[in-house]
């Protein structure tokens, strides 16, 4: 009986030892799961995400995520195999790749976002300058309605970009800034190009005025000069400047007058042909000029013949220097408006035949822009 018990105990002990040994061996030969490496990769991806790598280093971040997904997929696949048949080498490879890519993404993201923030800051500053230049330089310029719309949209886009920039929404800010840049630069460049084309006649304008002043000096006579860009009326006597007044022009005062109703103030060498006051004029006192003169008619006919203006167009007329000004705006149909007070000064001294030279500008575009 005692021997039997001892045998049973021994058998049980042997079984227990065998079980323990089997378990020990099983644990020993079971491959180590790649948990630490996966955890490290997850931690790196998390750190990259905190640095907005998904936004500023999208490619690398996406590669890191894909590598982690692959690691997990392979791990799952391996786990489905019999325990001793599992191989985690590929999992480790992907996990390490995910970690590497995530670290690179984090570092690049910081660099990219800093660079982008810096670049956007400079771009905002530059576009603000462009916007201010447009406001200052073209403030009085009669822009076409389409150009005004583009300018308005550009300003609003710039404002939206600034708001996004302040919120550190750099990609949105960048997109808005690109739109604003396109709109504002196109307004600035197109308008400047139009003005440059117009100012191509500067040397002719200067010659007209210089000759007229010389003539006024020689003849000891009066001379009227109108500088359209400066919105100035000058009265010379004997080659010397006597009066300088602000002048208001036609609504579309840039460029030369081409046809009736274009609301442009003509450019050329004219003379006073009529003086009107009281009931004879709507505008307090008026000095009518001889627009269209022979040069205007010749140009008009040429344009008509070439088809650049309609065959039904009329050259117009009735251009005057008159009162009613002081509105601080360009409101006439092509005439030059002075205040009634200034008309009182010039009306008695300007006579029929007094030369009137109307030019686009007396100063070059560079001079004007540098002053602004």
């Amino acid at each position, binding site marked *: 009986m005692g021997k039997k018990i001892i045998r*049973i105990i021994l*058998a*049980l002990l*042997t*079984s*227990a030892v*065998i*079980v323990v040994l*089997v*378990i020990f061996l*099983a*644990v020993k030969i*079971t*491959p180590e*799961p790649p*948990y630490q490496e*996966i*955890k490290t990769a*997850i931690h790196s*991806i*998390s750190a990259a*995400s*905190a640095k907005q790598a998904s936004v500023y280093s999208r490619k690398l971040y996406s590669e890191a995520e894909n590598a*982690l997904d692959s690691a*997990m997929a392979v*791990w*799952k696949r*391996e*786990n489905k195999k019999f*325990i001793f048949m*599992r191989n*985690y080498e590929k999992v480790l490879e992907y996990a390490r790749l995910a970690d590497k890519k995530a670290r690179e993404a984090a570092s690049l993201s910081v660099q990219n976002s800093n660079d982008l923030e810096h670049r956007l800051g400079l771009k905002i500053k530059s576009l603000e300058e462009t916007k201010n230049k447009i406001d200052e330089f*073209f*403030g*009085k*310029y*009669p*822009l076409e*309605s389409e150009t*005004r*719309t583009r*300018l*308005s*949209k550009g*300003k*609003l886009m710039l*404002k*939206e970009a*600034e*708001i*996004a920039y302040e*919120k550190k*929404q750099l990609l*949105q800010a960048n997109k808005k800034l690109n739109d604003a840049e396109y709109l504002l630069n196109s307004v600035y460049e197109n308008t400047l190009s139009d003005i440059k084309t117009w100012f191509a006649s500067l040397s002719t304008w200067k010659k007209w005025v210089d000759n007229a002043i010389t003539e006024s000096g020689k003849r000891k006579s009066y001379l009227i000069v109108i500088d359209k860009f400066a919105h100035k009326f000058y009265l010379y006597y004997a080659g010397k400047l006597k009066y300088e007044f602000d002048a208001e022009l036609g*609504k579309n005062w840039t460029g030369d007058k081409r046809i009736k109703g274009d609301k442009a103030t003509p450019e050329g060498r004219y003379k006073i042909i009529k003086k009107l006051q009281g009931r004879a004029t709507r505008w307090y006192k008026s000095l009518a000029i001889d627009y269209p003169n022979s040069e205007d008619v010749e140009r008009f006919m040429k344009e008509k013949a070439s088809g650049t203006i309609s065959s039904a167009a009329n050259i117009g007329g009735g251009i005057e220097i008159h009162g009613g000004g002081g*509105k*601080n*705006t*360009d*409101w006439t149909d092509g005439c030059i408006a002075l205040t009634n007070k200034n008309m009182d000064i010039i009306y008695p001294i300007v006579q029929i035949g007094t030369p009137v030279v109307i030019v686009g500008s007396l100063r070059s575009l560079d001079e004007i822009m540098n002053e602004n």
Partner: protein
Amino acid sequence: MKSKVLMGFAAIVMVALMSACGKLPQAQIDEANAAIEAAKAAEAEVYVPADFAALQDSMRAVNAYIESQKSKLFKKYGPAVEDLKAVVTLANTVKENAAARKDEVKKEVETLMTDIKAVIDETSKLFAKAPKGKEGKAALDQMKAEMETVNAAVTEAQSKYDSGAYMDALNKVKAAKETVDRINGELKEAIKKAGGRI
């Protein structure tokens, strides 16, 4: 015979030990995934992106832990169950935060919309009283063009608001409001300078 019985017993003990060490907490995993989906549906990615990223990271960590246990001879899912409960709690918080932030943005847009409409109305009336100003007609023309752009932006912001894209509507209406406020201020100043009544 007896030793065979004993060997069989030992084998059964081993198998039982190996298989009964842990059961995959599938129900908790499903619950956590559903909670994350609910947070996503609440636009947590848009309104609380950092919180949502942290939530996703937590779930990734739990999944990795679960997979590590699957790799082992003796599986221990207890800590994973606790972590999954924490993920569900976090997902619910993220969802609530997203909803709260969304509501906050929505209200901000609504306030701005109400304000901007009032300022637009007032500014439109100011145009009639405005003197031509120092820069004259051109300046007024520009202001009018800007008002048209502002109106278009408000319409666009309203459409984004109606479609629930509050975040997109916010910057647009903010920019429009700042623009119309500037125009309003400039007009009032010009009217005041000219001695007019506002």
